[in-house]
């Protein structure tokens, strides 16, 4: 049997490989290893130096270079990938279910004539068949998709795989090539990367976080949440909807399009647990969730939970913690 190839399309920002890339490598190995398939980590970049010595968990690292590939540009990436992937003819291509991967999925699917499955939390190879599990409707549904022979493209949901297994103890063989296609006259140009303003707290560095979701109901209830965070010696963070309503700044946003945090304690208050948020806090050491809906998806991720009303719980909790700390 010819060993097949799994290609992981790496994501990177400002010279650093994103966590999702490592998760995809873990996923790729999990699929490939039992079947004797190979894993290629494909990195499109302008300067290969930050990446060529990385001990990635792939069988080889293929770095394709050209100036316009320095920062993510969907038009540049798709042009290169369509050419490369036709050449490589893999069985499975992994993209991140992120603002990078989602820009590429459609073009690659139609350009390569391959099905694409998004929101994947698990991929399994069963002989010739690949089986994908995805979350839909805010995590309330699980869909299983099977793809027989031929190329399949999957978007891996961040937080689904262990990123630590994406790096190993040796550097795989590295191949560096120039882009096989010209990247002139692209309809999209990357101008600049803007870092978030850092006057605010860096929530990725705070060991205790209290996450406010829509369930806290109104901005004025944030005060009680802040009181609790203060009593715990931690900081307040929030889900996207709370930030979108401008109740807290974007620097406090946890989730797919915000920060990924791994505090010692994450208290999720009134958070439903939609995958986009969970992927940003799944790695927390201890997760406690408060939500009046017993079916809220957050309870699948949390270690402890309660359906008591968060607004009722807050004053009791804050008071007892203050007492405990002798304040």
């Amino acid at each position, binding site marked *: 049997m010819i060993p097949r190839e799994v290609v992981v399309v790496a994501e990177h*920002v400002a010279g650093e490989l*994103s966590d999702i890339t490592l998760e995809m490598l873990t996923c790729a190995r999990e699929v490939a290893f039992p079947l004797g398939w190979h894993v290629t980590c494909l990195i499109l970049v302008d300067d290969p130096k930050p990446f060529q010595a990385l001990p990635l968990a792939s069988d080889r690292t293929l770095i394709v270079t050209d100036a316009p590939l320095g920062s*993510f540009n*969907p038009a540049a990436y798709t042009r290169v990938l369509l050419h490369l992937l036709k050449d490589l003819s893999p069985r499975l291509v992994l993209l991140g279910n*992120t*603002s990078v991967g*989602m*820009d590429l*999925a*459609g*073009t690659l*699917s*139609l350009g390569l004539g391959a*099905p*694409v*499955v*998004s929101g994947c939390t698990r991929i399994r190879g069963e002989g010739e068949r690949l089986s994908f599990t995805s979350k*839909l*409707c805010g995590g309330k*549904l*699980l*869909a*299983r*998709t*099977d*793809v027989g022979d031929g190329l399949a493209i999957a*978007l891996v949901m961040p937080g689904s795989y262990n990123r630590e297994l994406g790096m190993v103890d040796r550097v795989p063989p590295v191949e560096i090539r120039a882009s096989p296609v010209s990247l002139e006259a692209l*309809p*999209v*140009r*990357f*101008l600049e*990367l*803007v870092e978030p303003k850092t006057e605010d707290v860096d929530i990725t560095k705070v060991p205790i976080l209290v996450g406010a979701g829509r369930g806290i109901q109104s901005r004025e209830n944030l005060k009680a949440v802040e009181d609790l965070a203060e009593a715990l010696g931690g900081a307040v963070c929030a889900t996207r909807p709370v930030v979108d309503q*401008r109740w807290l700044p974007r620097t406090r946003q946890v989730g*797919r*399009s*915000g*920060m*990924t945090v791994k505090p*010692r*304690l994450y208290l999720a208050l009134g958070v439903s647990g939609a995958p986009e948020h969970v992927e940003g806090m799944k790695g927390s050491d201890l997760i*406690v*969730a408060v939500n009046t809906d*017993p079916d809220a998806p*957050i*309870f*699948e*991720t*949390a*270690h*402890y*939970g*309660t359906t*008591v009303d968060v607004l009722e*719980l807050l004053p*009791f*909790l804050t*008071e*007892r913690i203050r007492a405990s700390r002798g304040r």
Partner: protein
Amino acid sequence: MKIAVILRQVPDVVQELVIAADGRSLAKDELTYITNEGDEHALEEALILKSRHAATVTAVSVGGDEARDALATAVAKGADEALLVSIPLERRGDNHGLAAYLAPAITSGGYDLVLTGVWAADQLDAGLAGLLAVQLSFPYVGGLTAVAVEPAGNRATVHKEFPGGRLGVMEVSLPAVLGIQSAEQPLRYASVSKISQAKRTMQVKEFRGSLPNVEGVHVSRLTKPEASAKADMLQGDASRVAETLVRILRERGLV
């Protein structure tokens, strides 16, 4: 400048989702629909652009009867035109089919910008925006939080979200498809009487093509995740729970 906004109707998760007897789809009679949140942001962004430039906004709603309600709301908010694209329930989550189906309707409109959300809650294959862009031969960038169009109208500068709160500033040639993550302003309100009025007076164009024989992905099985399978649920009223919780935190050295 002509802007099209695509509004998909997706299952409303406030109502309990019931899986149909075939084990692969949702039970029809229990289903209610709501406009995809990302698409609402796309509409808001389009209306913001309309207020800055001399632009017309065409709301394109995809779905069944409930799609008409979405059009009325869009018109009440300020959309100039309404286009209804009917599609049977079974095909609604399939963006490949949808993109192929929509493309001729969008092409004939001569739009400079096509805005829609980045993804829909019920999608399993790739996002509609990217697929539609390929069908239209337009460039596509998604995950946007701001769009600015040059006065000459042939380029747009966009802000694309990256993890960690970073923003990429990019330039896109028009015409283009743009995937809106969130609009520059909170969603505006449309009063019920304005929506009712729009329902009565709006002229809805309908698009009926032949459904392409394209399927994005085929669902083998649909299930609900085991509810509360993992968390250890704390019992009692607020006071009891607070007590228990503080004990747990103390045991872990967190308090």
